[in-house]
């Protein structure tokens, strides 16, 4: 990339029952992050705030975020899409050379305000997909899961194995709101179907929270931390809004987002060169579709990956040591959380979930029905 940009530090807060105002949650999180890094709000050149009215739960939600995030009278802008796009936009602002430090903060309080599945209805294509009232977030997910199963001979049990791994990993993540240290595919099988083949424990838990990160240009980053996490590449790609125009069994947009990021990062063999990946899956079945599109595993290999434990913490390609979207899924902020989890890994701060020797990480996130829009960032402990 044109300029060396690094992530200095991250902070997260998540809950399944928000009992404080969103403004207070943001103030405590961001102030805590400034204190941890040893700076004040005046050390930040540009603020990028990230939320979405639907997913916060009331209108013009962003106006309540500026001052709690320290942006009073500062250069501030806002991103409504998933936090991955806020992270990429923040990086681009730093790449412009006009900023040396930036704060990006994503948040949502929608899970304690509305049932998230209902809110998603209003993101559905209103001209066709919403008209008959039969498509919704769960039915589209079930359609996508079936399409993958049919194309590659996968079974529900493969997805339940993925969910169990994520719930076990979530038990090692202090921020997760749902976990089970000894989870098995049997536990997932024992949970109710929402739509066949989606078991409750294989779907994202309703989560409120926020994620904040400080980014800086190379020189400034090294002044602010001993362990900058360098941004080596990023890319995104958007598929058609109309669900019926896509091949749901695979994700061309995830593949293209990955290719764009890999090209910048100089990655030719992702499965070898990437040490750990944080893939954004709202449902267990999405993880193989996306991680295969990103070249982390062979196409259609969900069953083999699960049975051989390839994506496990000790496996050849650990995916979501944080528990991913099944441990906690904060709407909008989720993309920032995936990046922040890579930062924890590359700084060696992931505790029991640490992938030993992790030097290169991939963060992925998505937006829209059946992962319509995909974004990827490649991060590294090595500068340049």
């Amino acid at each position, binding site marked *: 990339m044109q300029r060396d940009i690094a992530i200095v530090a991250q902070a997260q807060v998540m809950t399944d029952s928000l009992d404080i*105002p969103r403004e207070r949650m943001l103030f405590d999180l961001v102030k805590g992050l400034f204190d941890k890094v040893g700076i004040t709000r005046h050390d930040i050149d540009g603020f990028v705030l990230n939320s979405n009215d639907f997913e916060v739960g009331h209108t013009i939600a962003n106006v309540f975020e500026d*001052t709690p995030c320290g942006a009073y009278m500062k250069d501030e802008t806002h991103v409504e899409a998933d936090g991955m796009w806020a992270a990429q936009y923040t990086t681009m602002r730093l790449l412009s050379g006009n900023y040396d430090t930036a704060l990006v903060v994503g948040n949502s309080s929608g899970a304690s*305000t509305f049932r998230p599945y209902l809110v998603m*209805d209003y993101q559905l294509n209103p001209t066709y997909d919403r008209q008959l009232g039969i498509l919704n977030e769960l039915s589209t997910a079930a359609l996508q899961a079936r399409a993958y199963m049919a194309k590659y001979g996968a079974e529900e049990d493969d997805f339940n194995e993925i969910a169990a791994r994520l719930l076990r990993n979530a038990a090692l993540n202090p921020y997760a709101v749902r976990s089970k240290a000894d989870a098995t595919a049997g536990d997932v099988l024992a949970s109710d179907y929402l739509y066949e083949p989606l078991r409750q424990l294989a779907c994202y838990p309703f989560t409120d929270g926020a994620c904040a990160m400080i980014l800086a240009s190379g020189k400034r980053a090294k002044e602010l931390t001993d362990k900058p996490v360098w941004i080596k590449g990023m890319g995104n790609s958007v598929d058609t809004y109309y669900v019926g125009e896509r091949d749901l069994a695979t994700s061309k947009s995830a593949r293209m987002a990955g290719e764009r990021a890999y090209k910048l990062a100089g990655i030719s063999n992702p499965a070898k060169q990437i040490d750990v990946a944080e893939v954004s899956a709202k449902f267990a079945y999405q993880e193989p579709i996306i991680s295969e599109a990103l070249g982390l595993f062979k196409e259609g290999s969900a069953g083999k990956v699960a049975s051989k434990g390839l994506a496990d913490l000790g496996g050849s390609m650990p995916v979501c040591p944080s528990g991913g979207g099944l441990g906690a899924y904060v709407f909008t902020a989720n993309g920032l959380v995936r990046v922040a989890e890579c930062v924890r890994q590359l700084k060696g701060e992931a505790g029991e979930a640490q992938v030993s020797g992790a030097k290169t990480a991939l963060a992925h996130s998505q937006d829209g029905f059946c992962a319509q829009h995909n974004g990827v960032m490649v991060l590294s402990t090595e500068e340049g």
Partner: protein
Amino acid sequence: MTFEMGEETREVQGTWDISTYKYLIDGAGMKLLVDSMKEKKIRGIKCPQCETVYVPGPTFCRKCYIDIDEVVEIGETGVVMSYAVEMADVRGNPLEEFRLTAMIKLDGADTWIIGTISGMDWHDARIGMRVKAFWVDEPVGSLADIDRFEAI
């Protein structure tokens, strides 16, 4: 056969009806204000660092970015910072009696509150004019407990 491009635009019917919603707000400063209004008093929160007095008070200072909780009592007199004369309602219906709406900086506060000024011809209103709050007979702890302001 070719596709006929003749049809006009179409209207798509839809509603937004998820449910009623609950959303937590930072109620401390507003509670402080309306509770004090029940006693016909006005209270705000002062930042110990920059000494800004906010009415209603937030729980952190926007400028200093610190938690604040020092309660201060504000006067019921103040100065008009700006005013607007309502001659038609927002739907465009002309009003028979014009309404004088003002932003008022109460003595001891740094932020402005809104109120209506009664008992004067709007032509005589001016920025910098001193006004006093008049209370309803039985305040209940709401923003409507200040019945009106009048010039002093």
